Each structure stands twice: as structure tokens, then as C-alpha cells.
């Protein structure tokens, strides 16, 4: 699978969980890997590229971290949107 297509799948996976479940990195790796039949390492690499450019972001609450779709506030603060 092309990396862009895989990243779309990852984004969709995160979007489906939005507001329902806080996803750990490994939830995404495991979930997308199983659903798409792609090795976990490839999902991890694709996901981290998304985090590096702000398509996904790390969040933190109650001592635990998760990965989610960035808010507009976050994107604005990072200068990724105006």
C-alpha cells in the first residue's frame, strides 16, 4: 500500500475513534495493521510522519498520552493554518 493511502486509512481510524476512545499509538498500529493487512512497522512509520507534520498529534490527560486528530487551535499555534 502506498504511504499516502495508508496515512488516509490511519486518519480515518483516528477519526472513527474521535470522542469515543483515547487511542494509544499501539492501538492505532494494531488496529490499522489488522484491518489493512499491513505490517505494524509500516503503520508506525506512516503514523509518525503524520505526527511530525501535524496531521496527527499527541495529547495528554490524567497521566496518560494518546494520539488524536489535531484541533484547529493546535494547528494555528504551530503555524500550520492561519
Amino acid at each position, binding site marked *: 500500500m502506498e504511504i499516502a493511502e495508508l496515512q488516509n486509512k490511519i486518519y480515518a481510524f483516528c477519526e472513527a475513534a474521535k470522542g469515543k476512545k*483515547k487511542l*494509544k*499509538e*499501539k492501538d492505532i498500529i494494531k488496529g490499522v495493521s489488522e484491518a489493512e493487512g499491513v505490517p505494524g512497522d509500516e503503520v508506525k512509520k506512516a503514523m*509518525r510522519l503524520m*505526527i*511530525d*507534520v*501535524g496531521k496527527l*498529534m*499527541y*495529547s*495528554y*490527560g*490524567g*497521566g*496518560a*498520552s494518546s*494520539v488524536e486528530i*489535531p*484541533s484547529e*487551535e*493546535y494547528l494555528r*499555534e*504551530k503555524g500550520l493554518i492561519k
Partner: protein
Amino acid sequence: MAGKKYNTPLIDDLEKGPWPSFVTEMKKAAKKSEMSNDALGHLEKCYATKKGYWKHGGIVGVLGYGGGVIGRYSELGDEFPGVAHFHTVRINQPSAFFYTGKALKEICDIWDKYGSGLTNVHGSTGDLVLLGTKTEHLENIFAEYSSRGWDLGGSGSALRTPSCCVGPARCEWSNYDTLDLTYNLTQEFQDELHRPSFSYKFKIKSSGCACDCVAALARADLSIIGTWKGDIKIDQAEVKNYAKTMDIKAEIVDMCPTQCISYDGKEMKINNKECSRCMHCITKMTKALRPSGERGATLCMGSKAPIVVGSLLSWVIVPFIKLEAPYTELKDLLRKIWDWWDENGKPRERIGEVIEIKGMRSFLEAIGVAPQPQQVKEPRKDPFMFYTDEDMAGFKAKEAEEKKTGKYKF
């Protein structure tokens, strides 16, 4: 520079007494920083109303990193605008906290530029903690520190910045190079440190001996405690010297936790087979006693403060491991430990809690460590004997044979 002057009778009380006071330091910072000034007024209000007004967490951080910045906001942002955002930044400390004056000045100059100027050197995790900045400064702070060779520390569900005692840099009792190990593990596990992927936090602390100057045994998920395999060498002439000023029976013999020392007024003897390498006698009689033989460490797992369940102390899993660069055995073991924790832990469960729930037996089996007597934490506990299906089939066959021949006794 500071605007409003706050009346702070309650926190002024904390300046009294013989010890240095953080309030005094905050007042100094308040003279040149509005954030520190508001932090002072905010603290007084917390004391007066007996309420905390801090909110914690959220989405602050630097791009690509999941840790190193802890978002803090005050509910009283209108009253104390300087602390409306008051985020904490963790800087990865050098092994055993060795700094040059130049390095410290560099850290503080950057912090004065973007933050409150308040620091916590060091936080209990080990990082150099910078207290109080605004969201819009975070990327600049990170850019300035990283351009000078500094990096952020760990926070959230990640590997926290490994920390260690002063080790062989200044201590003759260190059984391995704690500084090198800490540096090496920090470099090896950059991904685990900056990109949170665990169920919860994971701390590694390394002490060169059982004196445990970083309190690893009480507060690290992996406590690496230096130890040795040989006998304790005794200089009887020095023992005689100590006897002139010390009650050896009361201070050494009677305080030995395994009662392996004897002293008849002339000669000291140690039954080394019973010695638990606790360091008590050695630290009391430094000139007379000395470890010998092979050096390394004991690996203990699972200590934590009380959050989900009560506090735990670390538990021996590997009684002795040689610790020499590149530390391959330890790193491989750590990866197996994290895999097991990932499979079995729920969110916010520390590894010590998961071991308590799932059992040491299943943990040891998963990480490939053989059960050993040193792992028995207290009497009358499961000794972690593993019976495989093959073992059970063998027992049953033997039992059937004995029943047939009349030798069977229940």
C-alpha cells in the same frame, strides 16, 4: 518590572526557619518577571482559600514530540494573567547532574527570555524542570535549547528520562558505570522517550550500590542496583582502629539484616554466603571493609507511588547481570518487558501493578528469565515453579506406574 504588589502573609511564613525557602527565590524572580510575580500572588490565594486552581494536561507540546512539556493552566487567569498559561518544560539532564557553570547560565538565559525564570533543579523524575511559560513560546524554547545540544525529557505514557547516582565519577563503591549506562539507555531509547507509546509512565533509575542514592528501589519501574559477587574483604587492623571509637556489636553486628557478621572483640568475621550486599557495614567501616570479585547489578522491577493501587517497592527479577557497554542483554530484556506490559497492561497501569495482577510467574516466563530463589520477595509466596504440560504428563505417568507397583504414597 513586576506590576501589582501582592500581600503574602501566609507564604511569608515559609521563609522563616533555618532552611532555604522557595518563597524567597520566587520573590527574587518576581522583581523581574510578571509571571513569577503572579505566581506568588496565585500561591498566596491557594493557601488562603485552601484550594488548588491548576488545570493540568491537554495538547501543548512541540511538533513531533509527545512529551517534555506539561500543560498547566490556572482557573484564575483573569485575576492572575501571568499564570493563565504556566506550562512546565522538562530538559533532559546530563547523567548524574554534572553541569558546567556556562551550561547552567545558558539554560537560565534562554528561560529568562521565554519563561518565568523559575526552575526546579531537579524534579523528582530527574529532569531539569523549567516552570511557567506560555503556549506560543514552546517552539522557540525547543528550537533554542536543541540548537545548543539540549533535548526535552520524558513525560506522559512514555519512558521517562533515565537518571542515576553520581556513580564512579565521585564514588568508589559504584559497581558499574551508572553514568555511561544512563547515557547509553537515553540514546538507545529516544523513540520511547519522546513518542509516548506505553500504557503509562516507565522510569529507569540506576544506583551504583545498595546505598541507592537515587532511591531507585522505591520510585523506578526498573531499579538497577549495583552489587558484587565476591566476599567482603576485611582489614582486621582497621577494624581494631574502628573499635576505639565505635561500638561494633551495636552499630554493625546487630544491625546486619542477615546477621552474617560476628565480632569477638578482636576479630571480625563475615559469612559471605548469607550476606545480602546491603552496604550497611561497608559504609560504616569504609577503611576496614571492601567488596571484591565480579561487579554488576541486580535488576528489580515495579516500584511506584500510590495512584491506581498502593505504593510498591521494586522486586528482584535478575539477581545479577554484568553491565558493560553496549548493554545488549539489558536492552533486549527491556524490550521483552515492554512487549509483555503492552500486551497485558490497561491504560494507567504501571508495570508493577500488572505484575501483581498477572503474577510474577507469567511475567518471568514471558521475558525468559528463569525462576530463582532471590526472586522470592517474602516467605510463603509462590516460588514461581513452572510446570509444563510435558512435566504434568510425566508426573501422571510416574504416579500411574507407582500405583501399579504398589509404591504409590499420597
